[in-house]
């Protein structure tokens, strides 16, 4: 016999497959289980290791409603306070030349 054809290879693989599955039936003792538990207990408890990114994500999502409430409250406060920006304040003085003297007094020049 010189070379194996496809069909012969298939037969050989099938025969080896039954030998492969026969390995499953080999008996194994139970002592290794107590050794595993011994090792596990000696390693101590493991706690869920959450990554920084995951932690950050959780934190950000939890803060979302708080952020919305804060933004709403600040907006309300600004409207109630009758807010003027520096630019609007300066414009008001500049448009009236008499007020320029007052502005100069306050600015210390």
């Amino acid at each position: 016999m010189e070379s194996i054809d496809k069909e012969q290879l298939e037969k050989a693989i099938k025969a080896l497959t039954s030998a492969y599955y026969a390995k499953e039936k080999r008996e194994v003792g139970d002592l290794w289980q107590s050794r595993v538990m011994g090792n596990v207990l000696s390693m101590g408890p493991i706690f869920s290791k959450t990554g920084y990114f995951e932690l950050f994500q959780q934190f950000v999502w939890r803060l979302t409603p708080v952020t919305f409430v804060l933004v709403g409250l600040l907006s309300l406060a600004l409207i109630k306070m009758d807010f003027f920006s520096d630019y609007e304040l300066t414009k008001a003085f500049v448009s009236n030349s008499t007020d320029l003297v007052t502005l100069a007094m306050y600015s210390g020049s």
Partner: protein
Amino acid sequence: MKETPIMFSDSEIIRQVLEGNVNSFESLMVRYKDLVLRIVKKHVPYSETEEMAQETFIRVYQSLSGFKSRGDFKQWVSSIAVRACYDYWRKVYRNKEVAMSSLTERQQKWLEEVISDQQKTPAIEEDSKKEATELLDWAMERLSPEDRMVLELVYLEGLPGKEVADLLGWSLANVKVRAFRSRNKLKKILQETIKP
């Protein structure tokens, strides 16, 4: 040690272990020991079976926090067991500890009988099982750890390529290429065996 009732789901037991109840891990071990043993018995020598089963469960425990609760725990444990066996063979080959057995005339004769059998599926007699197992081990010793694992999982176990890829953590293309090559290598090995 056996406080956790068997009715708990895997994810519940995992949660308990991650919360610090180490003893709950025993329930997982009892539940999956047969699966792990079935895998390791087929992939590593008999003398290493207990050691590999132990190694698998230690790895499971150590990486339990990385298990995604929505995943299939059985598949995850199987993957750890297969990879532990693969690592075993890589270590053995790296340290050049592979014992190359020689083929006896009985084993050669057995193979010749099998491939010249007229039946498509050759029946293996009880008394020739030893020859079959020895020939299988002999052929596997001549393959690299990668070829050995792929050949065993794809051709001997008949698992789909995608599942083998998941178990070994390889790409599907890699599994397909390896499977094709390892089959050719096995053919060459068997061919050399039956040379006149």
